[in-house]
């Protein structure tokens, strides 16, 4: 089988057209898209000015705690429970945590918050364009949050946000950060309640911000990173078509028959195509990542963890492409035309679109995003992006398992479909 794989690599290395298609075309496309769409994708090379916002805090923590304590006692709770809940409420004051988040270094690079005494003062500053808008913390904000969290009453807590123009980039940034804060606060509070307060310290610890909503604290993914991966997983699919087309030509030119006459088993031939597809894809993606980093600094400065995880995802995705290769090989050898490979080559563009290689598909709909994650390239793209956003390997495990599953299904189908009786 080693000779069969070596021959596949040797014949590919002698085909300039295929090398151009597999390596130069994606590199060229990622360069064009990386430069052209840099501004649209939060490219870190596009420097964003720090946005100025105001905050008006109408509430007093002690007054809110007193009011909450009075409610607890009216509800006839035992003294021990009242004290426990008051202590938890003080530790999880949402207004205080919001304030701490805005003071954190990462957020201050994006947003600077100025305190204002009254709405009039903040409105005047907004009119003079000193600030892009302001956040109003109502008098009963923390109180309402606590009642919702601890007494399971319907929440009436609302942060009031006023911005000059909601479509402005700084307004979008503020909106994203606040959404991230609310989601994280809810999660941390739920964890704290579920663990009966044991997680309260962690919830109050500023260091924990951003661990759940990584995109708010990690470097945003720039267009070169996105399109290096997008074009990489897209063009990797064409490896399957390319290797399977060679298998079809081998059959047409009776080379396949000649290989069979040398007492190679049909399954060894099929697996050689799978391994060739896997190896070529692996090399293609690694070369693309390295070239993109050399030319555009795409993954410069990334740590060992990132590279190890990237190598693992690349291997699993290459395995999927290898399995697609074997399935296409079986189908091509069964049929009397190369239509199967031709159809797949046309279908790659659809897979690339659904998988998000051209543009992030979540901007269209959740459904397309979900469908995209069930395509091999979409699952791989999501895995790469999440690793870049700082997720752990364990968190992307479902996507990795999905890739392994796809690979197995296609490989088993390839074995079942491989023509075993007619070898010429």
């Amino acid at each position, binding site marked *: 089988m080693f000779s069969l794989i*070596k*021959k596949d690599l040797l014949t590919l290395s002698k085909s300039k057209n295929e090398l151009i298609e597999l390596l130069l075309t994606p590199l060229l496309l990622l360069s064009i898209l990386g430069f052209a769409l840099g501004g649209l994708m939060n490219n870190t090379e596009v420097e964003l000015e720090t946005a100025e916002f105001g905050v008006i805090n109408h509430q007093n923590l002690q007054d809110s705690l007193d009011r909450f304590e009075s409610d607890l006692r009216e509800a006839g709770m035992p003294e021990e429970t009242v004290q426990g809940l008051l202590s938890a409420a003080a530790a999880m004051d949402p207004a205080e945590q919001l304030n701490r988040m805005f003071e954190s270094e990462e957020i201050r690079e994006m947003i600077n918050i100025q305190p204002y005494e009254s709405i009039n003062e903040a409105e005047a500053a907004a009119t003079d364009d000193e600030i892009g808008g302001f956040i109003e913390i109502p008098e009963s904000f923390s109180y309402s949050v606590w009642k919702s969290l601890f007494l399971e009453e319907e929440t009436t807590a609302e942060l009031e946000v006023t911005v000059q123009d909601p479509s402005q980039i700084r307004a979008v940034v503020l909106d994203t950060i606040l959404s991230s804060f609310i989601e994280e606060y809810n999660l941390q509070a739920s964890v704290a309640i579920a663990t009966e307060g044991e997680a309260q310290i962690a919830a109050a610890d500023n260091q924990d911000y951003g661990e759940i909503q990584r995109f708010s604290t990690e470097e945003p993914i720039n267009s070169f990173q996105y399109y290096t991966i997008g074009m990489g997983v897209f063009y990797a699919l064409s490896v399957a078509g390319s290797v399977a087309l060679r298998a079809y030509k081998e059959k047409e030119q009776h*080379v396949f*028959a000649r290989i069979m*006459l040398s*007492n190679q088993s049909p399954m060894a031939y099929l697996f050689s195509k799978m391994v060739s597809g896997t190896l070529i894809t692996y090399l293609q993606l690694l070369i693309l990542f390295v070239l993109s980093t050399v030319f555009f600094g795409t993954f410069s400065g990334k740590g060992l963890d990132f590279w190890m995880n990237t190598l693992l995802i690349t291997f699993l995705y290459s395995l999927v492409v290898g399995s697609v290769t074997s399935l296409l090989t079986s189908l091509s050898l069964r049929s009397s035309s190369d239509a199967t490979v031709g159809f797949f080559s046309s279908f790659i563009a659809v897979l690339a679109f659904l998988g998000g290689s051209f543009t992030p598909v979540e901007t269209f709909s959740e459904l397309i995003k979900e469908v995209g994650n069930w395509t091999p390239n979409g699952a791989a793209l999501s895995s790469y992006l999440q690793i870049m956003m700082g997720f752990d390997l364990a968190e992307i495990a479902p996507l990795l398992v999905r890739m392994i599953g796809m690979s197995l299904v296609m490989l088993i189908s390839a074995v079942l479909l491989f023509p075993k009786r007619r070898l*010429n």
Partner: protein
Amino acid sequence: MLEVQNLEKVFKKKAAVDHINLYIEKGESVGLLGPNGAGKSTTISMISTLLHPTNGRVQFYGKDVFEDARDIRSKMGVVPQEIALYEELSALENLQFFGKIHGLRGQILKEKIQETLGLVGLKDRQKDPVKDYSGGMKRRVNLAVALLHDPELLIMDEPTVGIDPQSRNYILEMIRKLNKEKQLTVLYTSHYMEEVEKLCDRVYIMDHGQVVASGTNEELRSILSNEETIEVKVKQTSEAFKEKLLEHPSVNQVIAAEGSYTLIVTNSEQLLVQLFEYAEESSMSILGIQIKKPTLEDVFLHLTGRTLRD
């Protein structure tokens, strides 16, 4: 060495090979002669274990080839009609690949490659990509691959299609030499009568999936021992002329081609005088007449009513 019994292959209810029988002794050179579509390639595919027959069996040294395919495959070299090579690779790289998958390694592989390249006369061009070779050179590499692992039986499916006469002679001479000097057993299919006549000890003539005649060249020609072939060159053909010829008692068959007629006759002397009369009556001009001893082509014509290149 090889025996084929009642071999049949049916594709979509049509018999491509229709219950044929043949045998080959060790060291023999046997030809399968027939026009395109006669079933020669299908027969070869079954003999070489690439295609399972619908009925019948193929035995190699008494063993069914499909029960022990590995055995016959290791002792057989097959030269397909197509150039079954990687054209982007050089002859050397092709031979290295095919040698390795046949289990040859190291120094033995190197020596076998150089020996085979010498045999086909391509030592000097061994590092050039096959795609840069002439048709004849590609055919020689195609043959070299089949010889690399020292087969006992060489099966060749029209190995000289589409090449120049010089390359064709080179290949035929080489095969004859291997057959005579190294006792290589050869099964050679072709629709070129002269190749089979030159190369083969015995011939099976196939048409429409059946063996219509078999024997040595002499035995086959004796089918037409009482007959002669007359080739009449004319300016233009005429249906009336053909009809008159067919009415003559000495004429057994008339095949019209562009600018000529081929007649199979039992008594040429009787016919010759009248031939000119028929031409005059049909307002035709005869450009030339040639009386020949029957060839295998004529035998085929006699047996099937059509030429090998129909």
